[in-house]
């Protein structure tokens, strides 16, 4: 059952916390973050010189204060994550409970979609590794980049350096000193570079962008490079169900979509990136530039007729894969586009669209003139807020949770979707 079923969906507005009071209580209050269900709001607060804590609904999350706290975020499962530092050591705190292991530094947290797994990159004595839910890699490396977490939350991976390189030693570098380490164990094969990587949905396989020499790029899957090489490549994706790997590749000055080393989409583009599957794997979309300086979305290889001058971002399928939305930027104006139709409303900023469970409605957090509100199907909510977060549809799609800051108060609104969409 959808966990959201247990949330309070009673229509109305309820003030959860008065952030104005926090500002009187603490030296300063940083950006607030809100729990997915809207029942809690939290912020890093400064208690005194070099003393920080996290304030949750007006109360400190634990007794201790820390020298530094950063990257506060609510996870999808409602836990509150932060990176904390005390006595020069760093670790992760979840709901105010620090991991037992301390590090020289911690950064780059990655969370699974359900929020149940947390991975971070760590540095200890100038060696690098990853920690997953508090458990560290047994092997560490002198350099580590491009960290990844499997969708099932059971595996971590990163590009690691496995051979020493002297200062300005370009010859050794070009022999290939990098590989992929999964859960700390390196592949046997080495590459000149390893960049973005993707786990298969079950976490059992991994694909990565690699450079074989300064000029030849390809995709390596489980350590084995595709037979073909390219001028360059972008990040690979796994098909959700059949195990194939797709990636944009550049050949002859154009971008193509390839699958397992073979052409997949017929047309080429001036640019092609962010290939995105529907959850059932039946449809595939990507951000493309069909010609220089014009951007749009291609669905199953066919670009939308509507194009944008500057950017297309935040591609997202509806839960059943039947609909597709994205954001487009034309000059300073951000717009929402759904199935190729562009909303009339333009915004100073817009966030990734959110589909209702049945896919019929599309909502988005939007900003105009420094005020934030929610748009549904190109119609705007009547309230202009100091902050809002992503809208959340009720499981039946009829109501919407809007988490907002108004006049310094964090307010939890539940409205009928029809109140905005008509």
């Amino acid at each position, binding site marked *: 059952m959808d966990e959201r079923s247990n949330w309070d969906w009673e229509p109305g507005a309820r003030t959860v916390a008065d952030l104005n009071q926090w500002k009187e209580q603490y030296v300063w209050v940083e950006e607030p973050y809100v729990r997915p269900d809207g029942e809690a709001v939290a912020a890093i607060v400064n208690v005194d010189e070099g003393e920080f804590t996290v304030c949750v609904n007006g109360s400190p999350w634990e007794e201790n204060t820390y020298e530094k706290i950063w990257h506060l975020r609510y996870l999808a499962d409602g836990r509150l994550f932060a990176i904390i530092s005390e006595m020069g050591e760093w670790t992760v705190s979840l709901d105010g409970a620090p991991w037992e292991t301390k590090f020289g530094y911690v950064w*780059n947290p990655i969370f699974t979609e359900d929020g149940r797994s947390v991975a971070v990159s760590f540095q200890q004595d100038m060696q690098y590794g990853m920690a997953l839910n508090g458990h560290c890699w047994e092997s560490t490396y002198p350099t580590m*980049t491009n960290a990844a977490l499997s969708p099932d939350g059971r595996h971590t991976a990163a590009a690691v350096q496995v051979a020493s390189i002297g200062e*300005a030693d*370009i010859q050794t570098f070009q022999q290939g000193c*990098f590989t992929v380490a999964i859960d700390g164990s390196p592949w046997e094969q080495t590459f000149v570079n390893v960049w973005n990587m993707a786990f298969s949905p079950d976490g059992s396989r991994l694909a990565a962008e690699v450079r074989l020499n300064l000029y030849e790029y390809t995709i390596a899957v489980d350590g084995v490079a595709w037979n073909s090489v390219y001028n360059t490549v972008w990040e690979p994706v796994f098909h959700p169900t059949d195990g194939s790997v797709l990636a944009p590749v550049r050949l002859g*000055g154009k971008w193509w979509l390839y699958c397992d080393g073979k052409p997949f989409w017929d047309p080429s583009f001036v640019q092609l990136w962010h290939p995105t599957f529907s959850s059932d794997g039946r449809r595939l979309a990507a951000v493309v530039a069909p010609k220089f300086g014009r951007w749009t979305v291609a669905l199953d290889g066919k670009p939308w007729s509507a194009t944008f*001058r*500057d950017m297309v971002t935040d591609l997202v399928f509806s839960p059943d894969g039947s609909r597709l939305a994205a954001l487009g930027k034309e000059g300073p104006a951000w717009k929402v586009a759904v199935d190729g139709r562009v909303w009339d409303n333009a915004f100073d*900023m817009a966030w990734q669209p959110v589909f209702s469970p049945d896919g019929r409605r599309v909502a988005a957090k939007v900003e105009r003139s420094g005020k934030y509100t929610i748009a549904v199907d190109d119609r705007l909510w009547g309230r202009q807020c100091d902050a809002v977060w992503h809208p959340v549809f009720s499981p039946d799609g009829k109501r919407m949770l809007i988490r907002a800051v108004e006049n310094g108060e964090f307010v939890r609104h539940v409205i009928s979707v029809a109140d905005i969409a008509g």
Partner: protein
Amino acid sequence: MAEPAEEKEKKGLDIGLEKGVSKLTPEKIEQTINDVLDKECGPRFKTYVETCIHCGLCSEACHYYLSHDNDPRFSPVGKVKQTIWEMLRKKGKVNGEFIKRAAEITHTECNLCKRCAMYCPFGIDIAYLMTVVRRIIHKLGCTPQYIQDTAHSHSVHYNQMWVKGDEWPDTLQWQEEEAQAEIPTLRIPLEKEGAEIMYSVIAPEPKFQAQLIYQAAVIMDQAGVDWTMPATVGWDNSDMAMFTGDSELMGRLKRAHFETAARLKVKRIVMGECGHAFRSVYDMGNRWLGWQMPPIPIVHAIEFYAEILRAGKIKVAKKFSRPVTLHDPCNVVRGGGLHEDARYVTRQLCETLVEMHPNREHNYCCCAGGGVINCGPPYKMKRIEGNRVKAEQLFAAKARGAEVLITPCHNCHSGLHDIVHHYGVGLEIKFFGDILYEVMEKPEG
């Protein structure tokens, strides 16, 4: 003038060239040259090559030519003649020694400053022709060692100085703490989604000029700017891959930069005082990726300082009293038209501006840009001797009273430091940020 700098030129010790050339075969050279010319050079290249009437009017534009007593080998057209024309004339049938010399000419005797394009009666962009040669040199694996190493750093860490993933946010937090000793409530907001501005810098700042980040934080704080810095790759806007001819790597870097800004939902990117990075994000890298213009507006520090001064967001407590002269960096002045903004900022901050001549878009290059300084110690003296004319220009400004040289570009800053030191010019060099931080109203510490 002072004694020559201690670091002697070490000709022939560049393993990038030496070992690169040693691996070449005539077939590899011919095929690579013709592949680049046939498959990557379109009408623009053809037009430039066919339009040039060999008049030599570009010569007077080049600081190398002027600094070498009008030696035609250093004239822009002379460099074209010694490189791409010869490759074209011989249809790629040139030898390894030719390639080595072409690498030296294009990487260490041309700053891609584009001053010559203004002197050409047809506006031929000779710097572009030099970049075509650099692309060929890259494809042949003969790029000078130190700039190639910098490109390697870009490829691993997406920054030019091997700054590791933890070192970046750690440095920002360290600078935030330092600055809080002066302004207790100051923050360097990391990963603040929805901020108005993402502030980006080049890697030398966290590596060894962290005070510049401190100063920027104080300026942002006092101006009341809603800003953020990313804690991920994408923070570094520099791009030596652009200068080595590794376009694919350039695209990778610029994509990370703009997509980081897009992820943070900022409306503008304000960048520090760097020239080549501006060229990369405003012209070269964005366009290689398919963006006609930067998809998220880029605001160079000069423009940003002018903006906050005009808006009264920063008040000047007391103007900088020592007379200053102003160096116009090629990439943001010839390439970005920011010269009048630079003068506005100078006059707002300083009591006296002594113009150097020539100035604005006609200014002489620092001789460090275009990746030349990044080719490292083997070419240091060549770089300094190749810009005697700059020293003369600075001496003239000094003779008219200038004591301080403002250079709103990192490469210019480093290059002019060498010029000033070697020729004994005796000017103190500062960024705008140094002076702005010094003269602005700040809370009592």
